[in-house]
């Protein structure tokens, strides 16, 4: 945990990250289309899939677009930010992007159980995560500076000047 005058950050547990991933349906993926190119961020529909002891983030895309053509190393993010309150959270998934075989018999069942009104031309890629991390941003309130934290904390929040 670390702090600055107005806000402090809390690292999220893996369980909390997975819970948040399971609740949302829109995220953003970042890919680097080619060596020496700049990264590209694209908002996408996604689903967290947990099956047979494996965990994937399935991302809906279109054949031939930048995600579909991307090399394997990607990152994916979801967040919710309330700037007025200086609060929010974000979850970052880093992983490898794989193709999914849309003709596999259980494809629809596993990856798209409630199909949106989508054209047949949509395709799916899945991210195999090697790291899932998250942070929650908290507004500092003067009364918190002296409260005893029940979380495991490396240090207590510094006294903030309040908002």
């Amino acid at each position: 945990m670390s702090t600055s005058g107005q806000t402090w950050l809390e690292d999220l547990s893996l369980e909390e990250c997975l819970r948040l991933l399971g609740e949302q349906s829109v995220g953003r993926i970042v890919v680097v289309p080619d060596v020496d190119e700049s990264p590209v961020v694209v908002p996408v529909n996604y689903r967290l899939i947990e099956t047979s002891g494996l965990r994937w983030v399935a991302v809906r895309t279109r054949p031939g677009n930048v995600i579909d053509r991307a090399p394997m190393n990607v990152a994916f993010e979801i967040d919710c930010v309330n700037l007025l309150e200086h609060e929010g959270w974000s979850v970052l998934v880093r992983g490898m992007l794989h193709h999914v075989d849309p003709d596999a018999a259980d494809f629809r069942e596993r990856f798209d159980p409630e199909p949106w009104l989508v054209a047949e031309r949509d395709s799916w890629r899945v991210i195999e995560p090697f790291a899932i991390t998250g942070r929650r941003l908290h507004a500092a309130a003067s009364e918190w500076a002296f409260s005893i934290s029940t979380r495991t904390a490396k240090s207590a929040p510094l006294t903030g000047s309040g908002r």
Partner: protein
Amino acid sequence: MGMWVEHLNDRQCWELLERAEVGRLGVLVDSAPEIFPVNHVVDGRTIVFRTDGGTKSRGLDRSPSVCFEVDAVNTRDHTGCSVLVKGRAERVRDDEELGRWSALPLVCWEMGPKTHWIRIVPTEVTGRRIDRIVREDETLLSVREG
């Protein structure tokens, strides 16, 4: 491919960039892509944000080629638009410029001993309409009203 994509013009792109409260920064950290939500301001035709973290600042010094994306979803018809800025990240060192922004309540997602201000100078700004980005939670709109 026969798909019609509506592109936003320059003015529409910058309007969206200005109205959005939060964008996502795409960067390379040790050659791997990462993405962070960022609370930014538009300064002229550049994007400025704060970072307090050593890791990101060092990453930006090594790989200044970045992107910055904002999007907005229309909850009535579930259409949306997305603007992507590709550009170079630079440290802002001019004290006068820093003075302008340090009073702004920009939220920063990292903590560290030193505040760095980063300016993204665009090399390319593109915007497009996106369809069927469905939000189940409609409060996630990142565009200021009015």
